[in-house]
């Protein structure tokens, strides 16, 4: 069953199909919706388990460990939540208890940052947990199911962390194949606790104190069990492939089998790297290239990776880390790669450079990998390079020198010669052609722009198209300008997740954004792209003039606010815009989409369906007949003045307490 869902929901499906029996959680962005989904399923009886609302991640980890002594258990967390679990996590690995934690990877601050990087997972790399990095929602679902087979294997019995990058992974809506419960049941047997906590015949004590002699002997055993996870992961990934058609290993090698230049990474940025490899591979002036994507981060498959690199006779490895070294030689992945290569290859070790990027939700775009392969080519050429990490997207400290004036003077003294000796190789920087249809929606937070994009994606996926929606999330309040990107793949299906940030269609939900100087919404519109605006104020010609569009671009308007008002939907005009999007985007069939919306449209259903239909019909590239603008919408006004109703309940409680006490 292929459905459109975000990474968090996919992980929740993984837990549901694995028949998780106990799920304690404390919500934290960006993994919250995974836990919310599980709580909803348990609440309505779709999932047979217990959800415990604990008061902190520390308690969630304690509860999940306690539960794992007797039943299959799971939780989800992120960032500081995972760090708060650290104190107890080693009780899980030390007590040899299998359970799974889904982590929506997020920066750990300070300062506070809610967006994705791998710093949280890196921070617990010394807690003895098996760590798998998923690259997309599908992999997250599959990895959760496999994590129980791996963790519960009798030669392993260790907890597992399934990582997926926050927002770009956890909140990106994409097509996911959900296996049937029966298939998963035949792949994953029910949980068998080795030392159940309440067993009358064999009562046990967990975590008693052990003195040095026994302690070190126990730690020897624990390490041996963790090591076994490596080959078990390989076997389970292969068996998963036999059953479900999607095989997994400890790492992936995409590109030339005998690549001279390798970029190594973990997690979600794999999607962009893959796109660049297929774009650059075999081009004139480009060496043999490959991406090494590490899936099993812990236990690190050192020997296998070293062997693979040795076989390929690789000259240069560039390691991309979404995390910091904090004073170490390299950040964690680069450190592990360097140690693995040095330990196993000795003098045959290829040159290795480390790059830090993607911190706190920084984009990792396809063109970044062009730079990384360029760097690798320079290094392989024997040119001087840095032994400390490079940084992505820091103008004062670029990887390759583009603008000498911007470079920091202190760094220039130290690395000026290195920069000057590193040429920019044009062959590596051929722009990625934008072959897919990309849509960007601009709206104001609260207008439901993301909701309509999600519906659009759902309808597309239902029609077997490869549609991906990547909303951006910020700390915006209601009324701030937000945008969301949707991609519809055209041509050969290689399940891309790489956006080129050049749009075929820009939808503007609020005509006040048109004139906002900070947003320039059509800056990245393709020359023959389309603009769709919710407006009853401006004519298409005026919009063309306001945005300074070229002659090949087409402009459509739809009076969405007015239609929504007429349908008594208040300020919720996003469904009208959804219909209008179908009118201007030819790729998703409207008739078929309508059957999807009939099943899934939000309440009030009839009005929303009518809104979609009217949006579809009333979109035009002509000037609208002048109509009187609707008066200020009382419901919308009320909506924007909304306050949590608990406030009044609290006051009520205080008042009745006073009455009681006289």
């Amino acid at each position, binding site marked *: 069953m292929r459905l459109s869902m975000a990474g968090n929901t996919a992980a929740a499906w993984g837990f549901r199909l694995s028949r998780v029996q106990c799920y304690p959680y404390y919500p934290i962005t960006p993994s919250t919706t995974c836990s919310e989904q599980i709580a909803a399923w348990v609440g309505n009886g779709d999932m047979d388990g217990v959800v415990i609302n604990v008061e902190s991640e520390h308690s969630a980890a304690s509860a999940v460990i306690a539960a794992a002594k007797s039943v299959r258990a799971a939780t989800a967390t992120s960032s500081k939540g995972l760090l708060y679990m650290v104190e107890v996590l080693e009780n899980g690995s030390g007590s040899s208890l299998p359970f799974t934690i889904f982590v929506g990877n997020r920066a750990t601050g300070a300062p506070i940052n809610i967006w994705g990087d791998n710093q949280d997972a890196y921070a617990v790399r010394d807690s003895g947990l098996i760590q798998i990095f998923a690259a997309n929602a599908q992999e997250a679902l599959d990895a959760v199911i496999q994590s129980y087979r791996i963790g519960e294997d009798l030669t392993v019995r260790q907890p597992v962390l399934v990582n997926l990058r926050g927002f770009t992974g956890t909140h990106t809506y994409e097509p996911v194949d959900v296996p049937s419960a029966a298939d998963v049941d035949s792949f994953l047997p029910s949980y068998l606790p080795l030392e*159940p906590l309440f067993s009358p015949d064999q009562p046990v004590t967990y975590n008693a104190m052990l003195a040095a002699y*026994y302690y070190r002997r126990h730690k020897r055993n624990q390490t041996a069990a963790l090591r076994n996870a490596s080959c078990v992961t390989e076997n389970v990934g292969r068996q998963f492939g036999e059953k479900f058609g999607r095989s997994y290993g400890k790492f992936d090698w995409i590109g030339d089998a005998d690549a001279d230049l390798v970029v190594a990474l973990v997690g979600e940025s794999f999607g962009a790297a893959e796109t660049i490899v297929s774009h650059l591979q075999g081009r004139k002036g480009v060496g043999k290239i490959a991406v090494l994507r590490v899936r099993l981060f812990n236990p690190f498959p050192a020997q296998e990776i070293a062997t693979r690199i040795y076989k390929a006779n690789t000259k240069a490895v560039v390691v991309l880390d979404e995390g910091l070294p904090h004073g170490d030689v390299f950040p964690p992945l680069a450190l592990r790669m360097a140690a693995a290569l040095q330990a196993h290859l000795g003098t045959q070790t290829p040159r290795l450079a480390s790059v830090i990027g993607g911190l706190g939700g920084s984009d990792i775009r396809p063109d970044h990998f062009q730079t990384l392969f360029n760097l690798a080519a320079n290094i392989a050429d024997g040119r001087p390079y840095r032994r400390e990490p490079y940084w992505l997207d820091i103008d004062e400290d670029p990887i390759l020198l583009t603008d000498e004036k911007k470079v920091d003077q202190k760094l220039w003294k130290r690395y000026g010669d290195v920069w000057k000796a590193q040429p920019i190789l044009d062959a590596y920087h051929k722009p990625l052609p934008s072959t897919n249809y990309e849509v960007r929606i601009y709206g104001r937070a609260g207008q439901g722009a993301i909701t309509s994009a999600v519906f659009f994606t759902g309808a597309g996926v239902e029609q077997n198209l490869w549609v991906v929606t990547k909303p951006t999330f910020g700390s915006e309040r209601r009324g701030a300008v937000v945008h969301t990107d949707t991609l519809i793949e055209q041509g050969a299906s290689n399940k891309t997740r790489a956006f080129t940030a050049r749009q075929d269609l820009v939808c503007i939900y609020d005509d006040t954004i048109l004139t906002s100087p900070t947003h320039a919404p059509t800056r990245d519109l393709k020359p023959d792209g389309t603009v769709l605006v919710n407006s009853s104020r401006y004519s298409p010609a005026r919009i063309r003039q306001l945005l300074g569009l070229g002659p090949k671009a087409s402009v459509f308007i739809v009076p969405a606010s007015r239609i929504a008002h007429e349908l008594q939907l208040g300020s919720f005009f996003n469904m009208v815009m959804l219909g209008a999007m179908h009118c201007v985007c030819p790729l998703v069939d409207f008739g078929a989409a309508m059957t999807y919306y009939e099943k899934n449209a939000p309440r009030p259903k009839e009005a929303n369906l009518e809104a979609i239909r009217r949006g579809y019909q009333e979109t035009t590239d002509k000037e609208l007949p002048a109509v009187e603008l609707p008066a200020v919408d009382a419901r919308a006004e009320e909506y924007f003045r909304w306050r949590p109703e608990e406030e009044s309940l609290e006051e009520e409680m205080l008042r009745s307490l006073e009455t009681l006490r006289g």
Partner: protein
Amino acid sequence: MDHGEHNGNGKQQSWRIPTVNRHKDFAVSGHMVFPRDKTANSECVVAPRKEPPSAAKRLVGKDGKLLGFPVFHDNRTVEEYEGLMPAPEILTLVEVARREIEGLDYAAVMNQLADLGPDGRLLLYKRDGKLLRYELFEDPRICKDIPRGAVIHNLEQKPADVSGWRVHEFVIDPKGCLGEVCTRCSRVCPENAIHLRGVGADSFCEIDPTACKGCFICWVECARKAADCILIDGKVFDSELRAAHFGE
């Protein structure tokens, strides 16, 4: 949650919270949650008690909602938890050879165990006497004297002699002790060193001299302290000794 507690016509709706307990689950009705037997007709829902016993000081809000957290006293005795899970058995080749296990393909299992070598293990999982599952694996431990996860199997533990830890001898005077109607000391003893002897009026508590570590807790807690029921070094616990131990 989005299940309305009240449906349109104001009638209370109920639903079930599934649990992993084999015998009990929970029924939700309005604001209340009730445990009930799983074997009972799963659709039938226990009706909420009309008046909670301690409803005297309920705070009722404007819309009839309960405010605050009322305390309900439940007079039922604690039931024995029945959903206990038996631990699986883990056997070596030699142990398998000595045992007769119903429902096991001996030849295949023995072959595979032999293939796995000396660390080959057979895991047997039985429930209600029937073999449900078995698995073969290689014991990952390097140091076989430490159980998996460093757990301690309580029944295999031999009680340690801790008499060397104490400086005084603790003895209960059977004449003064209240016996089975009291047993307070045996419940507070951290070393489980105190056991009840005899029955009825003749019963009394006795301290196991190898298990007592001399912590004074029983003496402090004894219900008949005034009657000097627990003797220390054969003596009544005098003020000098008290000063030495409690710094008074």
